[in-house]
């Protein structure tokens, strides 16, 4: 960022309309939108934009694969709540973004992607590196723009920022032809403002609905709050907490909702769904009222719909009208911004005695914890659950953790207890392997003062491992934990449970990750027993630079409990009473 001579003039563009090239307009508009970091990768069709970068106070992070750029922008947004920005060239650069864009779309993350395209007269001609990226990304963006005129660039980018952040957030792509980047136009930041945000016309929070909701809450004997990602997006943490405390209602969280309600809060039941603890899912199945806050009844949290919470009335507070009655038919729909709705609802809620129901749930925990792997004494084996538990303890749960997808992701969700919003960065909706490392980079860039851990499986880590060099080039202090079980573990688990242990295509040969880190100039060490764990984590944390820990965990361990896809929420595979692989090593 050293030589940025015209930084001052870059800012004066925002107040005085000036003639600029399209390329300059891209950066000037981003500056105006408050952007300081862009993740990207150059190429012919975006070169004019890159050429103009030196004049603007924006830090560009050179990634190693454009998928990484999209995930970094996504991680940046998840950790900070701000819009993440990524950039790529036409053709293969643009198509490499696709998985990252879909990841952001499925989890409602505000990301703006800027791509270059061939000159406007070549559009549709199969010119070198021409691809119809607006066509390709149409179903995986909230909206996208194809811009072929210099004078339209500023408005499109400003509009993209508005769309990405408003209502239910999501990714927006702006594709700009090379001639539009090269042409000039008067840049007038103020005039390029989009029309005022138009809320979805089907938002509806009526007095009658609020009254009905309050009445249902008042009369409920067994209510449960289902707290989702919307709690974070709408910044409704306080309101959900007030509702829970005032009416003494236990709270179950979705995977993306973790951190939205403090893990240590006595009313926090924990994560619901496919790998939720039995008492959480049983409470939902027994409930007489569900209050869904900013969540969408995804199949991973409902199990089979026909058997889902059949005894419960349902209140759904949600900003996206297309989610109402999509999977679960609800009794009261309060369609609006969660925080605003709760603020209207709370004055109608009075104190309630919830102790009987809470005691019932407490009693239903039974001896679950006895079988919990976390409580099994050190047998000399290293279990991923122990790794997560100890990491959580050692970091005081203060770190931002980004995970990959698979068993380790679920163990993280079960054993790393998130107190604060935006402390877990994970791909829930799309379940994108390769997400952990790049999204951790984005999170670290957004929150440089925070301790950041990327936790990945041996499989997913190898999908985007090239970003290790990005970490080095950017001099980022990121700790990496590889949960190395020698398998595509989650798929192996499904094969074990549902395909007669036919481990087809799941055993995995990996490089020596510590040596791989070393080749990048990153320190690291392997951890084979629980006894070494604390010391290794301490070494990672105190090391000035990035550090990689290769946790050699039990190979054929499984995540429990588990609800087989399509089964009822209460039909879970419980932890084995006596976990065969936990027996003493001598038995082998």
């Amino acid at each position: 960022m050293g030589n940025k001579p015209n930084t001052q003039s870059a800012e004066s563009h925002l107040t005085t309309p000036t003639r600029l090239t399209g390329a300059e307009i891209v950066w000037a508009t981003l500056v105006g939108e408050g952007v300081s970091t862009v993740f990207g990768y150059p190429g012919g069709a975006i070169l004019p934009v890159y050429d103009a970068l030196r004049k603007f106070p924006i830090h560009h992070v050179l990634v190693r694969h454009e998928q990484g750029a999209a995930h970094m922008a996504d991680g940046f947004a998840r950790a900070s709540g701000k819009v993440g920005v990524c950039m790529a060239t036409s053709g293969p650069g643009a198509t490499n973004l696709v998985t990252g864009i879909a990841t952001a779309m499925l989890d409602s993350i505000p990301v703006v992607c800027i791509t270059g395209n061939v000159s406007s007269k070549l559009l549709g001609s199969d010119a070198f590196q021409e691809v119809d990226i607006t066509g390709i990304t149409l179903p995986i963006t909230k909206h996208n723009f194809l811009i072929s005129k210099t004078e339209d660039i500023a408005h499109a980018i400003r509009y993209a920022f508005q769309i990405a952040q408003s209502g239910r957030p999501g990714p927006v792509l702006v594709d700009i032809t090379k001639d539009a980047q090269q042409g000039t136009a008067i840049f007038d930041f103020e005039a390029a403002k989009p029309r005022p945000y138009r809320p979805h016309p089907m938002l509806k929070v009526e007095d009658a609905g609020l009254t009905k909701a309050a009445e249902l809450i008042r009369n409920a004997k067994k209510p449960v709050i289902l707290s989702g990602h919307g709690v974070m997006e709408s910044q409704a943490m306080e309101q959900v907490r007030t509702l829970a405390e005032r009416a003494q209602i236990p709270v179950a969280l979705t995977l993306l909702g973790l951190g939205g309600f403090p893990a240590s809060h006595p009313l926090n039941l924990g994560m619901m769904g496919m790998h939720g603890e039995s008492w959480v899912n049983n409470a939902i199945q027994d409930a007489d009222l569900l209050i869904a806050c900013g969540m969408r009844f995804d199949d991973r949290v409902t199990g089979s719909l026909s058997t889902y919470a059949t005894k419960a009335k349902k209140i759904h507070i949600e900003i996206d009208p297309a989610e109402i009655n999509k999977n679960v038919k609800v009794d009261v729909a309060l369609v609006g911004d969660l925080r605003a709705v709760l603020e209207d609802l709370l004055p109608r809620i009075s104190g309630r005695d919830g102790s009987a129901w809470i005691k019932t749930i407490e009693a239903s925990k039974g001896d679950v914890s006895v079988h919990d792997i976390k409580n099994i004494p050190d047998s000399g084996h290293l279990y991923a659950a122990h790794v997560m538990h100890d990491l959580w303890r050692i970091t005081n749960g203060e770190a931002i953790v980004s995970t990959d997808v698979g068993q380790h992701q679920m163990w993280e969700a079960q054993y790393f207890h998130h107190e604060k919003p935006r402390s877990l960065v994970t791909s829930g909706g799309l379940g994108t392997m390769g997400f952990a490392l790049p999204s951790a980079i984005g999170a670290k860039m957004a929150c440089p003062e925070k301790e950041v851990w990327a936790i990945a499986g041996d499989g997913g880590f190898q999908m985007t491992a090239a970003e290790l060099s990005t970490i080095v080039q950017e001099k980022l202090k990121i700790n990496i934990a590889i949960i190395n079980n020698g398998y595509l573990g989650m798929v192996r688990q499904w094969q074990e449970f549902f395909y007669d242990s036919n481990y087809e295509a799941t055993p995995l040969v990996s490089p020596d990750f510590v040596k791989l880190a070393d080749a990048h100039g990153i320190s690291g060490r392997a951890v084979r027993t629980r006894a070494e764990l604390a010391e290794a984590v301490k070494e990672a944390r105190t090391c000035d630079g990035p550090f990689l820990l290769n946790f050699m965990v039990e190979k054929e361990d499984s995540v429990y409990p588990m609800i087989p896809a399509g089964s009822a929420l209460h039909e879970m595979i419980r932890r084995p009473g006596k976990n065969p692989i936990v027996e003493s090593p001598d038995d082998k």
Partner: protein
Amino acid sequence: MTHTFVAYVEDIPGVLTRVASLFRRLNINISSLTVGRSERVGLSRLTLVCEASSEAGDRIRASLYKLENIVDVDDIAQAPNVTRELALIKVAATPRNRAQIFDLVEVFRARIVDLTSESLMIEMTGVESKIEGLIEILREDEGRILEVCRSGKMTMRRGHHTSSVLKAMGKGPDEKPLPEEANDTTVDIEPA
């Protein structure tokens, strides 16, 4: 059930793809689609007919609204409405057997809009069943129909109706409410 969506969309490139893509993704067939300019500058009006479950209607409407270029959406199959379709039908006819077709055209209140020694073209406006009726009768005589071009359905609610969304936008036509009694009339002034 049949859903008839009437939508106001921005008149810019790519909007139709976005609308069509939504139905494609849901694996729902669009049985009829008409698009044209509306009373508002820069806004096109489209009428889209499809078969989908009754619960799907709200969700499709909500999803249509989520498209940035869609301004207003109405699902009006169940509301009192006027629905019309335009058809152009070219039939083989020589001076010797034309008279019979002229009679048919008369009965169906259609019009002849082109006439040559070997063919003629019929223009007809009406509800779907009426157009299908004429086509069916013409089909009885094999080889007679040469071409059929149908516009697809166009639909408008009966009575004074302005969407609250369009109303809020304000730049609509003069808004004079109809007299009270007239609001509920469902008399079809021109029988279909």
